[in-house]
């Protein structure tokens, strides 16, 4: 069998490209690693407990709307945003909610924390990666495997 010998020129070009690629990708990696808190779109209620000087700081907080917490009181929506670690914050929102905001569904609130109450200025519904027709859910409910609402 003949061993394929790489041409010297080809080897040179390969190393040239490799250096370009490694330099560029490592710089992108370092940038995104050092800015990872800024790149993150939202924080969870658990992260809020670790943070200092929360008062009057503009934040985005994400999580699920807590069960039986969504209420309409004095012209504004009041609800609790809860995360997987069962930490939650109280949110007040005085505008119209997006259509798909429901209890036990994902939500992102944008605003300020004042006296342990989150005054939201923007509310976004966060959809998860599950897609299902109603018939499949009915089937799951019959089998007792449905974990959602």
């Amino acid at each position, binding site marked *: 069998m003949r061993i394929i010998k790489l041409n010297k020129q*080809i080897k040179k*070009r*390969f190393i040239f*490209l490799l250096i*370009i*690629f490694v330099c*560029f*990708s490592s710089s*992108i990696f370092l940038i*995104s690693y050092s800015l*990872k808190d800024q*790149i*993150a*779109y*939202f*924080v*969870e209620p658990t992260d809020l407990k670790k943070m200092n000087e929360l008062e009057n700081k503009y934040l985005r907080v*994400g999580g699920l709307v807590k069960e039986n917490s969504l209420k309409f009181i004095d012209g504004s929506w009041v609800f609790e945003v809860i995360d997987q670690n069962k930490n939650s914050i109280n949110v007040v929102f005085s505008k119209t909610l*997006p*259509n*798909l905001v429901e209890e036990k*569904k994902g939500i*992102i609130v944008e605003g300020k924390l004042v006296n342990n109450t989150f005054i939201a200025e*923007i*509310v*976004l*519904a*966060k*959809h*998860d*990666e*599950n*897609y*299902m*027709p*109603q*018939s*499949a*859910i009915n089937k799951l409910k019959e089998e007792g495997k449905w974990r959602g609402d």
Partner: protein
Amino acid sequence: MFAITPNALSTFMNSISKYIVILSFLLIGIAAFLIIFIENDYYQGISFKIMFIHVPAAWLSLAIFLAMGISSIIGLIFKSPTAFTIARSLSPIGLIMSIIVLVTGSIWGNLTWGAYWVWDARLTSMLILAFIYLGHILLLYSFEHFQKADFAASILAIIGMVNLPIVKFSVDWWTTLHQGSSVLKIGGPSMTNDYLITLLVSFLGIFMLTMYWFSNIFYIIIEKRKIERSKLLND
């Protein structure tokens, strides 16, 4: 593989392109039928059907960039004109695909999230991908000699490949408004089989259409060069 001349590849693709376009129309027809008659999502309602265009376009915009980057590497290392011409004819398709992703995504976003656009990691990196495609096309047409243009544009394509894992894994690495992957993820797809089949048929149809489009662009580039060469010889 690097011995194939652009002319031979162009002739070959031109000979099979009519079968590809028939197949793609057939698949897109089946996909359209499935999309119309499939049951709505229990939570989003009818707006989730945008997914059947959005997701194939997103996969293709990433896959086309990967193909472009690999053929740029082959082109630069082995000085292969075929690989350069493949990269050159892929970038307009990729640009259109990424624009489709951004437009359908923002329509869906307004219906679901309540906002057309947010600056989260997935959306921003996808916008950057579209801009890299645009930059690649502009670089290709900003040189007098196409060999020089190919060299400069391939460097951009290779550097731009850094963005591909960022687009794909942005939803896992950082918190984003965009939901995680539904199909290509650990633990299997998180949608029912009828949705999955519709998605795959739609993807195959759009993929075949892009192949047809690619073979046409490739053919046009080769024919243009032939005309230019004969003009030079006649002068």
